[in-house]
C-alpha cells in the first residue's frame, strides 16, 4: 500500500506542472494587467512602461512562467500585485479564517445530515421522511445565496443578532475575547453553509439504508434472530456510511477551499473571497498560487479518500 501511495504522490508532480502551466497561460490571456486602471493621468508614458518593465510583465510568458516556477520551488510565490505583500502571508492569513468557518460548518453538516439521513432511511415514507425530503429539495433547488441574503437581512440587519461582515471585531481583545468574537462571526455563515450542504449526505445515507435493508446478509442476520438494533447499527448503517466516507478525504482538504458565495455575501475575508478579488484585480501571483494550491488539494483529497476507504472497508485494497 505504501508503494502505491508513493506512486500516486509522484504522479501528482506532472499533474501539478500541467495545471500550473495551463493556469498561467489562461491568466495571462485575460485582458488587462494588475496596473490597468491604477496608473493615473499624471503618470507619463515612460513611467508606465517602466512600472510594467520592473514588474517583469514585458517578458515573454515562458520566461515569466519559469521565473515563477523557480521561485515557487523555493516556497516563494512572489508578491501580490494588489496587496504588496508576500502571497504566502496573504494566503495564510486568509486560510486561518476559512479554516475556522469550514471546520465549524463541516462538523455541523455531519451533525445535521447523519441523523436526518438515518431517520429518513429507516422510516422511509413516513411523515419525517417526507419532511426531510422536502428540506433536501428546498436546500438543493434554491440557490444558496438566496438563503444567505435572506439570513443576513433578517438576523443581521433587522434583528441585529449577528454581525453582518468581517471575521472578528476590531474591539475584541485578549485570546478569549478574540476567539469568542471569531466564533460569533462564523455562527451565521457557518450554520447556513451547513444547512445548505446537507442534501448530498442525507440522500446517500437514506438510499444506502433503503438498499441495504434488502441485502441478503441483512435478511440472514434477521433470520438468525440478531436483535433489530444490532442489525441496523452493525450491518445496515456501517455499509450505508461508505459513500459518505468515500468523499471524506476531499472534505478534509476542501476545508481550505473557502466558499465564494458565502464569503462574498457575509464579507468574510477567507480564501474564496481572496480568489474572486484576485481574479478581478488581475493579481496573477495570488490567482495562480491559489489555483495550483486548489489543484494540489484536490489530488491529495482523492488520495486521502482512497486511503480512508481502504481503512473503513476491508473489501477495498489499494494496490
Amino acid at each position, binding site marked *: 500500500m505504501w508503494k502505491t501511495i508513493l506512486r500516486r504522490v509522484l504522479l501528482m508532480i506532472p499533474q501539478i506542472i500541467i495545471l500550473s502551466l495551463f493556469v498561467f497561460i489562461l491568466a495571462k490571456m*485575460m*485582458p*488587462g494587467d494588475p*496596473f*490597468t*486602471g*491604477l*496608473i*493615473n*493621468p*499624471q*503618470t*507619463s*508614458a*515612460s*513611467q*508606465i512602461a517602466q*512600472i510594467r518593465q*520592473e514588474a517583469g510583465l514585458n517578458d515573454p510568458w515562458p520566461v515569466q512562467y519559469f521565473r515563477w516556477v523557480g521561485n515557487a520551488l523555493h516556497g516563494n510565490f512572489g508578491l501580490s500585485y*494588489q*496587496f*504588496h*505583500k*508576500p502571497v504566502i*502571508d496573504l494566503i495564510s*492569513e486568509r486560510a486561518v479564517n476559512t479554516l475556522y468557518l469550514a471546520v465549524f460548518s463541516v462538523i455541523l453538516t455531519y451533525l445535521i445530515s447523519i441523523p436526518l439521513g438515518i431517520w429518513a432511511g429507516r422510516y422511509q415514507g413516513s411523515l419525517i421522511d417526507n419532511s426531510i425530503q422536502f428540506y433536501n429539495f428546498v436546500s438543493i433547488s434554491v440557490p444558496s445565496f438566496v438563503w444567505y*441574503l435572506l439570513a*443576513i*437581512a433578517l438576523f*443581521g*440587519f*433587522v434583528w*441585529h443578532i449577528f454581525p*453582518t*461582515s*468581517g*471575521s*472578528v*471585531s*476590531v*474591539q475584541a*481583545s485578549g485570546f478569549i475575547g478574540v476567539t469568542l468574537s471569531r466564533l460569533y462571526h462564523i455562527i451565521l455563515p457557518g450554520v447556513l453553509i451547513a444547512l445548505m450542504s446537507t442534501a448530498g449526505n442525507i440522500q446517500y445515507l437514506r438510499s444506502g439504508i433503503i438498499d441495504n435493508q434488502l441485502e441478503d446478509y441483512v435478511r440472514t442476520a434477521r433470520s438468525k434472530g440478531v436483535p433489530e438494533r444490532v442489525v441496523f447499527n452493525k450491518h445496515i448503517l456501517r455499509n450505508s456510511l461508505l459513500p459518505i466516507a468515500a468523499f471524506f478525504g476531499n472534505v478534509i482538504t476542501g476545508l481550505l477551499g473557502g466558499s465564494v458565495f458565502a464569503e*462574498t*455575501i457575509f*464579507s468574510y*475575508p477567507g480564501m474564496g*473571497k481572496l480568489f474572486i*478579488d484576485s481574479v*478581478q*484585480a*488581475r493579481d496573477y501571483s495570488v490567482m495562480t498560487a491559489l489555483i495550483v494550491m486548489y489543484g494540489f488539494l484536490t489530488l491529495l483529497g482523492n488520495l486521502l479518500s482512497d486511503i480512508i476507504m481502504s481503512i473503513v472497508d476491508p473489501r477495498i485494497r489499494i494496490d
Partner: protein
Amino acid sequence: MKKATVAGLVTLGSVLAVTLTACGNSNSNSASSSSSTSATKISFPAKMNNTKSSVSGGNLTYGLVMATSFKGIFNEELSTDTGDSTIMQFGAEPLFKTDKNYKIIDGGAANLKLDQKAKTATITINPKAKWSDGQPVVADDVVYAYKILANKETQSQRYTDSLQNIVGLADYHTGKSDQISGIQTPDGGTGKTVVLHFQVMKPGMAYSGNGYYWEAAAPYHYLKDVPFKDLQSSPKIRKNPVFFGPYKLNKLVSGQSTEWVPNEYYYGAKPKLKSITASVVSPNTAPSAIKSHSYDIIGVNNDQYPNVKNTKGVTFIGNKPLSYSYLAFKVGKWDDKKGENVEDKNAKMNDPKLRQAIAYAMNIDQVDQKFYHDLNFRVNTLIPENFTKYYDKSAKGFPYNLKKAEDILDKAGYKKGKDGYRTTPKGKKLTITIASYATNSAKEAAIKNYIQQWKKIGLDVQLLNGRLTEPNSFYDKLQSDSKDIDMYIAGWSLSSEASPNDLYNPKAPFNYGRMNNPEQTKLLADIDSQKAFNDSYRIQAFKKWQEWMNKEAYVVPMTNQWSVSAVNNRVKDYGVGVTDAGGANIGAWADVSVTSNSLQTK
C-alpha cells in the same frame, strides 16, 4: 495632500475612478455649490446641521463601502488604494491647509511659500506639529517622503513626471545621486524649513493636488531603519503607522476594520470623539446597513438611493465630485516611439460636424431623470463647476436637439440612403461602433437609448459586441487603439488643480481619443504658461480652451453625479465640502462629534 475620501464610498457611476487610486493627485471632494447651471432637481446639503451639544466619549462608526478588502498600506507615499486613503483619513492629515478653492493657505502642519523668481517653494513646519509617538515633525520628514517616492527600491507608484520638475529628483530616482540636490534643509534635518528648487514654475503650484510637489511627510525617525525595499511590507506601515493628524490607529483587523483613538500630541484642537471605528461594508449589504442604522457615516450607491432615501434618523449629505463622464472619438493612434498621439486626418470620426451631430442627439437630461433619479446631471464643459474661477458658466455644451443634429449632418454632406441611414460625404456606408463598460445597472439601457436617438438622425451606431465591455478589456482596447472602437463613453476623476493638460495634451497617454491638434495644444499650453501666473490671464485661457473643445467636439462632456453619504443625525460638524472632514481638510476630523450615545433611528 487631499484625500479621495468620499470617492471610496460611492460607485462612481459612469466615472472610472482611475485617478482616485492615486489620491495624492486627485481630489473628488468639493463644495456643493448651490448655483448650478445645469438644472438639477435634487440637491443635498454639504454639511450636517446638528445644533445639539456634543456628548463626551462618543464612538463613531464609519462604513467604507467597497467590494474588496482594503490593502492596508498606511503610508501616503506608497498607498495606491482608495480604501486605504479613506481609512487613513482620520490620522493622515495633509501638510498644507486649503481654502474652498483648493488654494493652499497658511495654518496647517506646514506653510508653503512660492517664490517665482528664485523658482523655489519654502515649506515651514508648524513648531507644534508632532507625530503620534510624540516626536516633532521636522525637515527630515518632509525630505524623506520624497526619497520614498523617488527611490526605485520602494516600488512606489506615486512617482510621476510632474515631480521630476524638482531639481535633482530624477537623478536620485535613477541612482545617479544619493541625495536630492533640489531639496534643501537650511536649518538642518531637525530644523523646520525645507526649500524645494524647481526647474520651471507652474501657475497651478498654488493649488493643492497640482502634483509638482508632495503634500505629505513621512516619519523619518521611525522609518529610517527599514530598508526601502522592505518598507511596503514593514509592520511600521502595515500595523503601527505613525501620523500627525487628530487620530491615531489603535487596533486593526487586516483588510476589514480599524479603530482610531485621539492622538494626544495633535497640534490642533483636541479631538472630540473617544474612538472612530471604520469598517468595510459590502455594496450588497450597504442599503440594509443604512436602513438599520448600523453606521454613523456610510456612502450611498446612487443605484440604491431610491431604496434608502426615506430612512429616518439619517441625513443625506452630498457633493458634486471633481469628475465627469464623457463621450470621446477615436481619431488616431498612440505612437510608442515618439511617445505621443498621432492624429489621423482621414479617420472616420475626424469630422467635427459628425461629432457635433452625435453630441446634440443625446437626450442626456431625459436619461438622467429616467435612469439615474436625477442624481446624475448633464455638464456643459470639461471643467467641473467646482473650479468656480475657471469653469465657463456660459458654455452651452450640447443640449438635446435632434433637428440641429440633422441640419448639421445634412449640411456636411452625410446623405440619407434608402434604408434611412446616412452615408459618408464620399458616399461610403457609415457604421459607428461605440464601446463602454459596466459601472451601474442602468448604463446599458442608457446607451441603447442613445443608439436609438442616433438612429433617429440616420446614424447607424452599434454597441461593441452588443453589450458593455468588461472594464479591463475596455481599457486594454482603448490603450492599444483597437480598430473595433470608433467612440466610447468613459469618465475621469480630476485632481484639485484644474489644468486639463495631463488628459488632453498630445503627449498624454490618457488622451485615449488620440487627438493632436496644434490649436488645442497651444490653448492647453497657455493654461500652464508663465503668463498664466496672472490669474485673469489664466481664467481667459481656461475659457478659450473650453470653448474650443466644445466647438471641435473631440471630447463631449456628458454628466457628473452627486456623491451622497448617509449620516446619522447624532453626528455633528461632519460634512463633505472641501473644507469639511469628508474633504480631508486640516483639523476638520478633530471637530466632528456625536450628540447622543447611541445612533438615532427616528
